[in-house]
């Protein structure tokens, strides 16, 4: 079993090499990248906005409800919302959701192409199918930090609305909290994480779709396995990056 896992990991890294081999003509690739940006990034804006806005609101409410000691200042609501949203909720929590949304879309679309011999058709024509199919997704997900940036903003906005309109504090207190002890490196840390999660979101689901065998049932199974492995890898990488970048 260990050998099987190691062999899969080796195959995954060999796939990375093949993605950059024999590039597809730029005139064709340009269109593919734009289509993937539309499908993966623009198509995810709605769900990212929805999740981050309400999660930001919930974080603000829960922090407010736990501030039972009158000596603890109200600005802590804004501070806690900012820290939670920027450090974890927007980059990591949203990436896990995206592993389900984007990941299952990528695995099932590539897996279906495998089952219906469309990938064989590309190879027989002399097209590097990995470059043709995965490279545009990788390029599109370079814009993933942009998506998460919007999520961060909306998460904090959701927190502000919940705090102010829920009667848990004033706008000045919340904004003061957002500005309190702000460390710009936390933003850098969040975007480094997001950038690397984007690469995982493009490649792990592609790997599971590209190398799947079988029929329609296996496409479904591959999507599930892809979601599990993408999530596990994101969580492990999150831990490693946090240890490396924040613990000093």
């Amino acid at each position: 079993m260990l050998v099987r896992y190691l062999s899969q990991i080796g195959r995954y890294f060999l796939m990375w090499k093949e993605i950059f081999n024999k590039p597809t003509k730029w005139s064709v690739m340009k269109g593919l990248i734009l289509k993937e940006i539309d499908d993966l990034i623009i198509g995810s804006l709605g769900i990212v906005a929805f999740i981050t806005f309400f999660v930001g609101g919930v974080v603000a409410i829960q922090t407010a409800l736990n501030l039972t000691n009158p000596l603890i200042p109200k600005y802590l609501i804004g501070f806690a919302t900012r820290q939670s949203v920027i450090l974890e909720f927007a980059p990591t929590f949203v990436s896990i959701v995206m592993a389900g949304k984007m990941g299952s879309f990528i695995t099932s679309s590539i897996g279906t192409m495998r089952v219906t011999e469309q990938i064989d058709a590309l190879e027989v024509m002399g097209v590097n199918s990995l470059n043709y199919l995965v490279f545009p997704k990788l390029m599109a997900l370079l814009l993933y930090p942009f998506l998460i940036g919007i999520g961060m903003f909306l998460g904090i906005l959701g927190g502000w609305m919940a705090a102010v309109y829920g009667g848990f504090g004033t706008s000045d207190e919340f904004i003061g909290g957002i500005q309190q002890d702000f460390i710009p490196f936390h933003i850098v840390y969040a975007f480094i994480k997001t950038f690397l999660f984007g690469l995982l979101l493009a490649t792990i689901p592609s790997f599971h779709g590209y190398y799947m065998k079988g029929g329609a049932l296996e496409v479904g199974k591959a999507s599930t396995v892809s979601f599990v492995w993408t999530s596990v890898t994101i969580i492990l990488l999150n831990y490693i990056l946090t240890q490396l970048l924040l613990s000093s």
Partner: protein
Amino acid sequence: MIEVKNLEKSFGDSKVLKGISTVFETGKTNLIIGQSGSGKTVLLKTLLGIHKPDSGTISYDGRFYWEMSEDEKRELRTEIGMVFQGSALFDSMTVAQNVAFPLKMFTKQSKSENQDRVDFVLKRVNLTEAHNKLPSEISGGMQKRVAIARAIVNNPKYLFCDEPNSGLDPNTSILIDNLIKEITEEYNITTVINTHDMNSVMEIGENIVFLKNGLKEWQGSKEEIFKTDNQAVVDFVYSSNLFKKVREAYLKG
């Protein structure tokens, strides 16, 4: 001409091709026939370079496939057209985009030149009103014709067809068979068809290779298949009463 010598291929402990040698001739419809599990599909996929043989050689007009560099292989693949069993059309593209795909990928022609060529080949396969339809919006027979159009759009030297008649009604099957034969003669290409459809064998079989248990059991033309006394071929080809009677009638003259 495609020449195969002593081709062997195994998957794990199972030896699927056990030393096949044959020649697929230019300008002729070469058919690979045999029972399920005889190695037809593996032979076809090995010819196409999808499977790497364990031993033996495949040469495309003197160019040995497994001795070529990756660049040379990709170059050769642009000379190959393939019609897959399930058509393998790209779902997200229209009929015209599917047919234009090899042109967009491998030529430097202008959009209008590509369009002219697409119109020409779609007309050639008698499909003039489906340009903007998606593969899911057309019938199986039409999908096969689009697949043939895509396979020939780049003027290939070699055309491979995997079960081109599977899932088609008898009338459409004959249309597809005749279309492949006409194209083969018209463009003088080497066509290799993997089939278990005996109607195709009788209709267009100019060079038939019969496989049994991974070995070439027999080779000949559709005329010779009537006269053969090879029991394995007779049992396979004339398994239906209709074909038995056709053979008896043919032999009686």
